């Protein structure tokens, strides 16, 4: 037999359930409105495809025969976003690598998945201009197409570091990944486990022996 007390308790709990459902639906609608408002108010500068007018950039092109890096000027319309700008710079370099008659041939369609930036931790001395670390995520296809050897692999890394540093001076350190993963070497030789100082990419021609 159902007592009055049980009926009262059941009705009270049913009412509480209805009120809670109404509150949850209301909260959900408010959260949805807030997210839509934030998406609408996003700054246009990070939208994809936004580019600045073309400007002169310097790309450092390696030469396998003498181990040198040569500065090449190009006019490029770079995106406003830093990450996209770095990616366009490096892809332009890879385009030179795969061009017919390249002095550092690498046959790959796309060499860089993405470039990310991290603030460089300030030193104990508190340097204000510690700069940024560029994390360059190379494509697996580049690592496969990269000719194996100390010289060719080192030149690929140096060219990328020199190009980044020349056009984005705030880049002081560079770390390389392949398809988003850490890797021991680029193609069996050049060490990718370490973070490179961008200034190590000396664009001056490497001195050569006299036997040529």
């Amino acid at each position, binding site marked *: 037999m159902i007592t009055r007390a049980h009926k009262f308790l059941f009705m009270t709990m049913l009412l509480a359930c209805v009120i809670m459902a109404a509150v949850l639906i209301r909260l959900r609608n408010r959260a949805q409105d807030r997210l839509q408002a934030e998406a609408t108010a996003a700054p246009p500068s990070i939208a994809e495809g936004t580019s600045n007018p073309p400007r002169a950039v310097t790309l450092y092109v390696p030469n*396998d025969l003498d181990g040198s890096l040569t500065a090449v000027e190009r006019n490029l319309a770079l995106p406003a976003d830093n990450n996209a700008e770095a990616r366009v710079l490096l892809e332009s370099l890879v385009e030179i690598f795969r061009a017919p008659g390249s002095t550092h041939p690498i046959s790959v369609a796309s060499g860089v998945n993405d470039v990310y930036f991290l603030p460089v931790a300030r030193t104990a001395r508190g340097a204000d201009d510690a700069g940024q670390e560029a994390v360059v995520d190379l494509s697996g296809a580049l690592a496969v197409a990269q000719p194996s*050897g100390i*010289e*060719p692999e080192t030149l690929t890394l140096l060219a990328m570091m020199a190009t980044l540093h020349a056009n984005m001076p705030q880049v002081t350190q560079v770390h390389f990944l392949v398809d988003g993963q850490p890797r021991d070497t680029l*193609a069996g030789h050049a060490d990718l486990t370490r973070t490179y100082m961008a200034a190590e990419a000396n664009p001056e021609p*490497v001195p*050569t*022996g006299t*036997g*040529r």
Partner: protein
Amino acid sequence: MRWTEAAAVAAILLGSAQAQIPPPQAPQLPSLPRSAAPLVRPQFVVVLDAAHGGNDPGAHLRSDVQEKDITLALSNRLRSILRARDIDVVTTRDTDANPSMVDRADLANHAEAAACLVIHATATGSGVHLFTTSLSQAPAALMPPWQTAQAAYVTQSLKLESEIDSALAHAQIPVTLGRAFVQPMDSLACPAVAVEMAPLVGGHVTEARAIVDAGYQKTVVDALSAAIESWHSDWKQ
């Protein structure tokens, strides 16, 4: 239980819990010999490290030629010539094996060598590429870090590279000099140079020669042995 007693009990429990957690494991790296400081013993020992080997073929120089085979052939040939000249030689591998980078460096460091040559080969470029570490010169330390042991030998490594450069130039072989981060170079506690042999591209002085050309390999090995002999008389300076 009063508050202070409860806190004391909690501290004891926390302490015992922490005591059961093993400390983080540092990478197990071999210790450097005492002579890791740039002091060299009177005996003149040369370490030859034929890169790659075993399941690591290195570069594919041709469809039927792998880097590991060329480096081993160069190492064995150079070892024979140096031993014929009464120079002690230690090799990191004599067969198609692939010692780890740590094992290679450990062997070289315990040999307390006067010269360490890391031998590579590539299909790119022309002549011979010589590389020293990209580390900056650092003062000798009693217990140098394993990963940067080479830093105390940068000046000596550059001198050794200069000797090899001269010998190769004398043999009419083009040389490219550079600095690179290549393992196990940075962990070597000895004057160290990476020697990377490439094919010879024809020019106005040189004629084109493949990397498998026995005569070309002999010329390179002879130049390296001449450089080591020259280093034998200069290395203490």
